[in-house]
C-alpha cells in the first residue's frame, strides 16, 4: 500500500466531482487528497487524486474511473517524473516580538508573507507536502490560527507522450488501455 497519484481529465459539468468522489467511497478507496480545477482544454477539468492503494488497486481505480461517462482520460503518474505541489495558506499569531522571526522562517522555507495584521500574519507556501509539513511544525509554537491546503496537484515532467501538444478541445485515446463505458 502506498500513495498513488492520478491525473483525471473530466468534462466540466455539474455533479462530476460528486461522481468521482462517490466512486472512491463506493469502492472502498481512501482519498488522501483531491484537487480540481480547469485544464488546458476548454470545458475540461483536471483532477489530481491521491489515493492509498496497491498496484492492483491502482489499475482497478483507473478502470473504474474510465467507466464514468464524464471521465475523459486517466493517467497514473505515480512512477513518472512529475512536479508535485501542494499550496498552503497559514495564519499565525504574530506580535511585535515574534513577527521578525516569522519573517525569517518564511524566508528559509521560501514561503511568502501575504498579509500582515496587528495580531497575525498569513503565510503562503507552495511545495511538496513534506516541505509544507515542515514549515507547519516550526510555526506551531507561535500559534497556528487557521490553515487551508489545496492537496496535491501534479504534472508530468518534460515532453512525455502525454504532455505533447494536443489539438485543442480534444484528448488522445490512450492506446495502452481498453475500456468500456
Amino acid at each position, binding site marked *: 500500500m502506498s500513495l498513488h497519484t492520478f491525473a483525471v481529465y473530466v468534462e466540466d459539468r455539474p455533479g462530476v466531482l460528486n461522481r468521482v468522489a462517490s466512486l472512491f467511497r463506493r469502492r472502498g478507496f481512501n482519498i488522501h487528497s483531491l484537487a480540481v480545477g480547469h485544464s488546458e482544454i476548454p470545458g475540461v477539468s483536471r483532477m489530481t487524486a491521491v489515493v492509498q492503494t496497491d498496484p492492483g488497486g491502482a489499475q482497478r481505480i483507473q478502470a473504474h474511473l*474510465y*467507466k464514468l*461517462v464524464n471521465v*475523459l482520460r486517466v493517467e497514473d503518474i505515480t512512477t513518472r517524473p512529475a512536479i508535485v505541489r501542494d499550496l498552503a495558506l497559514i495564519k499565525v499569531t504574530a506580535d511585535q516580538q515574534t513577527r521578525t522571526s516569522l519573517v525569517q522562517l518564511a524566508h528559509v522555507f521560501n514561503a511568502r508573507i501575504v498579509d500582515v495584521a496587528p495580531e497575525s500574519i498569513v503565510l503562503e507556501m507552495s511545495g511538496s507536502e513534506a516541505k509544507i509539513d515542515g514549515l507547519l511544525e516550526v510555526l506551531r509554537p507561535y500559534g497556528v490560527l487557521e490553515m487551508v491546503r489545496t492537496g496535491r496537484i501534479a504534472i508530468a515532467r518534460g515532453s512525455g507522450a502525454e504532455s505533447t501538444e494536443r489539438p485543442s478541445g480534444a484528448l488522445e485515446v490512450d492506446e495502452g488501455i481498453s*475500456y*468500456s463505458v
Partner: protein
Amino acid sequence: MKLTGAQILWESLVREGVTEVFGYPGGAILPAYDALLDYPIRHTLVRHEQGATHMADGYARATGGVGVAVATSGPGATNMVTGIATAMLDSSPIVCITGQVGSRLIGSDAFQEIDITGITLPITKHNYLVTRAEDVAKTVREAFVIAKAGRPGPVLIDITKDAQQASCIFDWDAAAPTIPGWRHAHPIGQEQLARAAALLNAAERPVILAGHGVMISGAMDPLRQLAERAHIPVAVTLLGIGGFPASHPLNLGMMGMHGEAWVNTAIQEADLLLACGMRFDDRVTGNLKTYAPHAKKIHIDIDAAEINKNVRVDAGLIGDLRDVLERLLPAIAVNERAAWAQRIAGVRGDAAVRDIQQLPDDGHLYAAHVINDLWRATTSDTIIVTDVGQHQMWEAQYYHHDAPRSLITSGGLGTMGFAVPAAIGAKRARPDAEVWAIVGDGGFQMTMCELATAVQERLAIKVAIINNGFLGMVRQWQEFFYERRYAATPLSGPDFVKLAESFGIHASAVSIRGEVLPAIADARAHDGPVVIDFRVEQEDTVYPMVPAGADLDAMIRRPNPIAETGAD
C-alpha cells in the same frame, strides 16, 4: 418542428424502437403521460414502481433489448431504487424515466421533490437531470447508447415538469449523442491471444466458466465450438445458465455455492480455467485463498475493472466475448482429453446416487420434484423467471435449460419479489413464449399485487408458488449455522388459490406428487394467467451447499437418500 419536452420524450423513445413501457403516473410526470396518448407506445400500468423496474428488466433480459420504466417524482422514483439496483448488479439494460418538480423548485424541498439522481448515483451506469426541453432528445439518445453498450446497465433520466411542458424545435439528427468519454474497447493484440491459446492448448484438465456475458454478447456459438474442439467441460454461473445447452455432453452444470459437487470438484482439480463473461462472484468462488489452486486462469471480460478484481489471472483479455472467442478459436488445438472426461464422469456418478430425483415417491411433495416435472412438461423455448431463495437454487439444479435467455433471475442483488413482475415483462417482450414464474411464498407476497397488472393487461403468465410456509433459504441458514433457531422465518400467508381467484385468475393447489403434472398441463391449456400453489415439504434443504466463505470443495452434501426417507 416545434414540440413540447413531453412529446419529444415519446418521439425519441419511438425512434429508439421502444414499443412498450411500464409505469405509474403522478403529478410531476403528468405532462409526459398526457402526451403518451398520441404515440404508438403501449403503457403497462403497474401496481408499484418497483414492479415497473423489474418488468423493464425482465423485458430486457428476455430479448437483449432495452426495457423502459416510468414513474413520478418523490415516492414514485424512490420505489424504483430496488429494481434499478437489481438491474445494475446483473448488467441489465434498462432506462428509467422519472418526473421531477419544476426546475425553479429544485433544492427547496418542494412537494415530492427528491434528489433521485443523487440517490441512484452508485446504482446506475449513468444518470441525468434534464431541466430544459432542448436537452430531452439528446439525453434519451445518450441514455440508450450507454444502457446497451459495453457492459450493459441501468440509466435514469429525471425530467423536470417544466422541461416536459416547454416547447422547442425537435431535431433528431442534431440530437445525436456526443459522449466525449466514450471509448471502444481496445482490440486485443495477436500476442495476447497467442499466449492465451498456448495456455489453453497446454492444459490437461481445463474447465470453461461460462457467465452472463455469454448471453449479453451472443457468444453461444463460438463458446460451443471452442468447448467441442478442445473437449473442455463447461460450468455455468447462475446467470450463465442457458448460455451452453444443459443437454450437451460437455455441460457440467452450475458452479458455486449450490453447484453440484462434481462441478466444484472439477474446478478445484482443474489446471486451467477459461472464464467467459463472468465476474467470479463470492457465491461462485467460495474461499478465494483456496479457489482452484492448481489452475492457470484466463479471464475474458468486457469490463477492465473485473480483471484481477477477485481472482488473480494469468491472462486477462478485455473485449466483447464473442469477438474474443472467435479470434481465439483458430489457435485452439483439437484435443480429446479423455482422462479428464473420465475423471469427471467418476465424480458425477457419486452425486447422481444422492440426487433428489432418485428419491422414491413417499407421499411428500418436494420442490425439486415439482421443478423437475415442470421441466419435463415444458419445451426448451419456455422462459422461466425465478424469485430468490431455495426454489431459485432448485430451479437452477433441476430445470435443465438448453436455450439462452430461457432463465431470468436476480443473481447479484438477490431481490425477492422479482419473479412475478419480471415474468410480466418477459411475457410482454415475447408474447408467444410460455412464461413461468417460480416463486417462494415469501417473495410472492412481496409483489403479488402485480397479478392485477397481468390480469388488466391480459398477460398469460403462469405462476408456480413453491409454498413451504417458511422463508426457506433463511431457514436453511438457521438450520445449518444457527442451531435451528427459527427466528422470524415461519411465514403464514393467505389462501393463494382464493387470492388468485379474487384477481380473476385461474388457480389450483397441489400437495401430492401425482397432481403435479396434471396441474401443469391444466395451466398450460388455460389461455390466461394461472397460479398454482405447490404446498411442498416445509423443512427441505438445498444440497449441496458451500457455506459462505468456505473452500469450494468443502460442500455440505445431501445425506444418503436412504437415511432421508427412512422414517416414512
